[in-house]
């Protein structure tokens, strides 16, 4: 889960001028994972690695390795369930579970 670091924000003299964000790929630093109320859980045995979920995920939160799905980036997954909805496997290779329960389990 994303933790918000307490950093001193830049003052007006330090900010880049004109509502610009300098540098590419900065969206990666913006953690969307703390909005989530449900999370996808990967069912490895059912997955056919068609990568449909990867293509559809609006947050690029599906992690792949060697052309195969390996799991989710929970710092950016916002739990929209699109991956689950689009998964073509009968009975789905993704399970959506309650974030609250998943967290409680993580703590144990």
């Amino acid at each position: 889960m994303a933790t918000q670091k307490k950093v001193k924000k830049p003052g007006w003299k330090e900010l880049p001028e004109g509502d610009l964000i300098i540098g590419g790929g900065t969206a990666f630093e913006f953690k969307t994972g703390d909005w989530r109320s449900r999370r996808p859980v990967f069912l490895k045995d059912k997955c056919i690695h068609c990568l449909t979920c990867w293509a559809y995920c609006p947050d690029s939160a599906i992690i792949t390795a060697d052309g195969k799905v390996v799991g989710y980036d929970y710092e950016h997954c916002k739990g929209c369930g699109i991956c689950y909805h689009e998964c073509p496997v009968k009975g789905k290779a993704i399970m959506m579970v309650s974030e609250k329960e998943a967290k409680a389990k993580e703590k144990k």
Partner: protein
Amino acid sequence: MANSNIVARTGNEAMAEAMRQINPDVVAAYPITPATEVVQIFAGYVADGLVDTEFVPVESEHSAMSACIGSSSAGGRTMTGTSSQGLALMAEMLYIAAGLRLPIIMADVNRALSSPINIHCDHSDTMMVRDSGWIQIFSENCQEAYDNMLQAVRIAEKARLPVMVTTDGFIISHGMERLEILSDADAKSFVGAYKPENYLLNFEKLITVGALDLQDYYFEHRRQLAEAMKTSKQVILDVAKEFGTKFGRTYGLFEQYKMDGAEIAIVAMGSTAGTAKVVIDGLRSKGLKAGLIKPRVFRPFPKEELADSLKGLKAVAVMDRSDAMNAQEGPLAVEVKAALFDASASSGANKTVLDYIYGLGGREIKPEDIEHVYNDLSEAAKGKAKQKVTYLGVRE
């Protein structure tokens, strides 16, 4: 002095001529009276291959300014032209252009705002967007419109603020005058090449433009904009100085006409200042110590400088070619008074300031009207001030 040609041109032609010499990367515009000709003539230059500009004809002024914002963000030197309702339709995008610190240059031909619909001159369009973060430069005649356009490019790019150069609708835009134009080479070298620091088409240095900016950062960005407006004063002066040195025509934040030893003065912008000069010459020959202050830049407002130049006067009249509908007085008078208030706090010298709202919707302002104002001022200087706000030339 550099080579120059003397020609006869209208204000719109003068502005289009400046645009031809500037040869911007992109012009996006939607025609509107009385500014139509500026981009119409320029479109001719594009069609004839006299410029390499990408001309983007759009379906509204809102789209025109949107396209300008896109092109300027991408890194292109960008210009447009509009007037009145067109400027009003651009208003939303004007704030965005300024907030993004894009050096877009606009020819704005001043015209009254509806309703009632009216195509003639007053300054209510420019005044309506006075707080949008655009530098606003007023021109007295065709020559100034031309010179201001060339300087606007340099000012915008150095200050990183959008700039609008205004002329009085029909009075300047369609009035033909003697104009000294620079050679293309001189104009080109004065304007120089545009080298933006950050732009979207720079794949070496990636940026995001216009991100969401809530309670966390919005305030800081607006503070930056306020500061940019303050520091742009020096930029305007520096560019004017270079222009004056090279081409012999000098400009400042405002012009002082016969202010040496003046006891009373009018503050007026645009073409009216020219009429006032004629009146002053007459009054001076009769021994009346009359002067004129002609603000060239309304944004940034030259507060300290203007207050200083009005210091020794007994009474001042502000000529407002628009009404702020604030149950107080016109927008220029409000600014002048605010400037004088702070100055009088330190000097202790309070003075009478009268405001004349005049010329709305193209109502003529004649030398006798201005003489009338100076007569009022003479009375006011003796402590016999008439009403503070006068609707000059309105039928009772």
